[in-house]
């Protein structure tokens, strides 16, 4: 069976649930009192998808400002980035937009971007509407899902979708030589989108 290694990193504001998403995906567990991640945490998980084995190499980064400068270390080598925000915190959605800009400027050119609106179980306290987030995601051609690590909603799905969008790396060649390998997927975040001013403030 073919084995694909998929390098994924998670970015986003502190407390949005990056680690919880990873724990749910890797361990299928949830801890409501999880401590903030310190630095970054590396985990792997191998799943079978159709007739392929997908080995996810996951960098779960810390969202705090003091670790911000380290982020390039993790996304530079990644084929995909899951940027997470908290649907109950408007601020975390703004932070997400900054991450998108940063990835566009400094990230690998063909990086697959997925946007995850976590804590969708707390829709009573929602501050970011699903439509706004979806529109934004479409505008940058990113995958969009609302997830709940607590109730295991859309967690596996987002990883599967990523694995489909990541181009199969050619033997000996660098990752993502081709723009896209699935016919239906539009050009990804690498393509400049018209609606965003390019320079970062």
């Amino acid at each position, binding site marked *: 069976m073919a084995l694909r290694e998929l390098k994924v990193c998670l970015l986003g504001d*502190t*407390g949005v649930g990056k*680690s919880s998403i*990873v*724990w749910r995906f*890797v*361990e299928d567990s949830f*801890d409501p*009192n*999880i*401590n*903030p*991640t*310190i*630095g*970054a*945490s*590396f*985990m792997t998980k191998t799943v079978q998808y159709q007739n392929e084995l997908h080995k996810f190499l996951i960098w*779960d980064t*810390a*969202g*705090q*400002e*003091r*670790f911000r400068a*380290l982020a390039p*270390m993790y996304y530079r080598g990644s084929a995909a980035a899951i940027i997470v925000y908290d649907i109950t915190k408007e601020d975390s959605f703004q932070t997400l937009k900054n991450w998108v800009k940063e990835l566009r400027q400094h990230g690998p050119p063909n990086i697959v971007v997925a946007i995850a609106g976590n804590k969708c179980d707390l829709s009573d306290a929602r501050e970011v509407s699903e439509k706004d987030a979806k529109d934004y995601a479409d505008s940058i051609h990113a995958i969009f899902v609302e997830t709940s690590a607590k109730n295991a909603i859309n967690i596996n799905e987002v990883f599967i979708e990523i694995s489909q969008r990541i181009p199969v790396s050619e033997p000996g060649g660098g990752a993502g030589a081709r723009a896209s390998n699935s016919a239906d997927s539009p050009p990804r975040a690498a393509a400049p989108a018209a609606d965003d001013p390019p320079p970062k403030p």
Partner: protein
Amino acid sequence: MQEENEHEPQLVSVTRIKCSEKTLRPTIPCILHFTEVTSVTGLEFLSQPGQEKTIRACYSLAWIIERCLPLKPDTGMEADVHNNSVPLENGNLAPVDRLRRDRSDSPTPGLVEGTEPGAGQDSAMFVHAQSFEDLTADGEQEQEEEVQVPEGGDRSERGPEVEKPRTEGEENEKMQGQPGEEEQEQEEVQSGGGRAKEEDVNSEAWRRHRKHVFVLSEAGKPIYSRYGTEEALSSTMGVMMALVSFVEAGKNVIRSIHAEGYKVVFLRKSPLVLVGVSRTRQSERELTRELLYIYYQIISLLTLTQLNHVFQIKQNYDLRRLLAGSEHLTDNLLRLLDCDPGLFLSAVTCVPLPSSLRDVVSSSLQAAKAKNLVFSILLAGSRLVTLVRKKDQYLHHMDLHLLYNLVGSSSSFREGEGWTPICLPKFNTAGFFHAHISYLEPASDLCLILISTDREDFFTLSDCKRRFLERLRRRSTYQALQEALLAPSYPVSQVGIPELRHFVYKSKSSGLYTSPEIPIPYQSEEEQERLMGLYQYLHSRMHHPTRPLRFIYHCAERENLLSWVTSGFELYLCFSPLGTKALAISAINKLLKWIRKEEDRLFILSPQTY
């Protein structure tokens, strides 16, 4: 106003402050300690009532005290102002070397440093740094030998519940010492337990916490408070800063305020100011050391370089932004400071293991090396299994305690492999190391910390871990290690001294200590803290900057304690209250023999390097 005390050459002034009834309620008596002899100006402003300066200073003082201390008006506190017996250690910052005595003076030549039980065979693992600022340095300052039976004097604090007015006469009596009172103070201990951020800072409960710690920036911005939210305390912290800068304007340094059984201790570490408010019996010096730990905890996250940089750019920067998510580290460190003897002993304890087993673990760790690897540390809980270091590179025990704290207070390393920059402030405050932190198994207590100088080294270190584990498993050491860890400590009964309840023995040359498990009467959190408080008290008496002791026999209400410092070791024993002094003294020999017999199990005698 000014009082000379021949025992206390550094103490320039003990000044009485009385604030006018008009401006203030209640009347606050305080004792201020100043460090510099240049403080004549400082003295003047404090001793000439009526000056505007005086009133402002007093007002600030009163503000702090009123907000932090549960004072009640009209309690006649004035009588307590002048008390010679305030522990007058001034946190002397001068190098301790001048106080040292020649080691050859030791009355027990067999027990000099390097030959005591637990002394490493080769070089030690830890730095014996006694840097200028290192208040934790155990200066061997034995200047006088003294046996005290029972321990007396030096109690100036009285519990805040003692409120009856006193006359000068009564106060003098008190100076003679009332050991019973010490216990009283401890009884109303309440454990903080958890982060109670929502606490109302105006509530009585908030005021009654045993120890408050505040960190603020030089602009007076709150950075950390142990209890209550920083926002709610911003005005209090502003006043603290005003007080610090006011005294500094007079070319002086405020070190502490002693009032009503409380000590308010200031530690100025530019660009930060740390303030501790305590009603424990800890000395000012001990409190300063604890604040220093908190300071280094912050440095370990940011480096001093970054900290300075941030405040240079923006003086009123809100540092909480950079420290976000680290509050639980500081909270946990404060808990450790209350209950882990290693932190006041400046020592580390290790898991008792057969030396053959430990050697295999060490050599496996030694074999799994990498170019940029500086330290490999294997921990079991908060105990050291082994430590392998690069040749000529030493870890400071304080840095190791910060690593313990980092690992112990965060569940986030439980899964996967952690990779984080960390500054080891006693090694270098300017730069980051990069630590690979992982548990050998998710359910296991064994945590491996690999420290490298290269931030791109993650996969190299991950491979080191794999090689280390492979080697352990191949030699079936892993199983043996797991089994040994089922009993991570030993009961005191192994020593065979019936009256002995607990002890702490530190070998000075190796920087390691050993201690049996906490016995039944001390197992609750409060009791454990009380026992550690007693040890800490003895420790501070033995290491008093100007009047150090070598030998103390202390009769407390619920236990008898004995402590002994030689140039080779420090020993703290806790006996049942029925034990006698003669019995305690005879127990020392027996215990030392036992430790000598067990030393290769209790200590790491042959530390390894790559």
